[in-house]
């Protein structure tokens, strides 16, 4: 099996898993869900690090990679923090002071 074929299978299965997982999320939490998945998709930071950290990277690669690391880290940090900040606000009756 070629790598790309294997990758396609991974993609297909992950997408179906995603469909199943998201369908059980209550509409109550759709906003934090979106900011969480947004933080998760900032996994592109992996690609950005590989690009920027290479030994013989061209100047173009370095500049684009540097910008991409910045943007992805920005999304990771603000995404997770704001998701948590939102979730902290969801309280049941009786648990509030």
């Amino acid at each position, binding site marked *: 099996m070629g790598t790309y074929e294997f990758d396609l299978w991974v993609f297909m299965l992950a997408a179906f898993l995603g469909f199943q997982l998201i369908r059980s999320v209550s509409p109550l939490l759709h906003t934090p869900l979106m900011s969480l998945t947004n933080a998760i998709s900032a996994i592109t930071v992996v690609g950005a690090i590989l690009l920027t950290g290479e030994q013989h990277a061209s100047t173009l690669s370095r500049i684009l990679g540097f910008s991409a690391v910045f943007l992805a880290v*920005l999304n990771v940090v603000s995404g997770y923090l704001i998701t948590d900040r939102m979730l902290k606000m969801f309280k049941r009756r009786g648990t509030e002071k």
Partner: protein
Amino acid sequence: MKLDDAVLPILYMLAAMGFILAIKWMNSPATARRGVVVGEIGMALAVIGTLLRFEVVNYEWIFVAFFLGTAVGIPIAYIMPMTAVPQRTAFSHACGALASALIGTAEYYKGLDQSGAGVSKVVMVALIVETLLGFLTFTASMMAFGKLQEVLPQRPIVYKGQNFVNLGIFAAAAGIGLALVVSPGQTFLFPIFAVLALLFGILLIIPIGGADMPTVIALLNSYAGLSASAMGFVLNNKLLIVAGALDGSSGFILSIIMCRAMNRSFTNVLFGAFGQLQTTSAAAGEAKPVHSATPEDAAQILDSARSVVVIPGYGMAVAQAQHKLREMYDILTRRGVEVRFAIHPVAGRMPGHMNVLLAEADIPYDKLWEMDDINPEMANVDVALIIGANDVVNPGAETDPNSPISGMPIIQAYKARTVMVIKRSMNPGFAGIDNDLYYRDNTLMLFGDAKSFLSSIVKEAGALAKV
């Protein structure tokens, strides 16, 4: 220390597991915060693992970018008011998409340098998908950000032949992308391809109105994820494929839910230019009489009710009225009135927008009801209090087959014994659709700014409570 080739795949796999669990635990507010923690752990494992790969040797630039990203990200997360969450979400979609597009661009030129002949066809297809989605999502999200922040006009802008222009530009971008797949060496094509993709993103959002923002934001969320997934194909990295696919499917499902809640199709949202059709019937409505009431009347009616359902909309967010609403909720609850909140899926400017605002005001989430659960109970409700919502309670959606929102499921506020509507004036709402509800005999119009009107009600109801 450099990582062994056998350890890295395990770190990446653990990271993917963290992401999957993070999303799984979002299904309940009780476990959701735990989900954020495993998501963070997953991300940390992925980043540390990548930093320790033997290919990565130059750290200065990476750490400077890390520092800057963190320095900007932390204030954004903490200072941002909750009413600005839709804008922030659009902005972060833009950042994520731009990051993918930039990496894709760099990979393209790198591939050319190294092998002369360029990269393999399969990788090139993935690379074109990644950059196409990345660039168009970047500009589209910035446009959405501009509209939400009200830097740009919120009304949809349409002109004749718009859809042909848009589709033409998209076809041109896709065509050039295909040409690049066939012969990657044609470097002059790449900048043209990028510019067309950027341009298409802008044009795509120009005809989108504020009421359609929830669908569009969810769709852009999906594109940003798919772009990350495509990058996984380019780099042959399963973690990126999985994380991107999770984000892609999440955004896709949310936009389907939003479309369904408006009884519209994707094509209709993207190419239908909602809100332009209805200027005529809105003008016809001006002459009809309405009943209006003062805060004292409203407070009295609320105080003598047994069951109240509040239906908030984007107007509540604009007026920042959620905290006053909480005060009213407290007073009425203490007086033995049952107060619930009915949330329409597309109320506000992004999925779940209203829930976050009400939660911010400390309203317990078990008082927030979904449309399908509250509708069967509406006939037993004494007062339906509508704050800044319009289309989502418009009975025309059920009765008038000519209404532009015909068939859209609504919260059946009209079934309540008394309907009260807090509204600035009789101007039709955002979509410009006349609302028959306002002219009914059991409807009282409360004219004024939502926040100040609610504070008057709170004052009056507080006085009643003391008697």
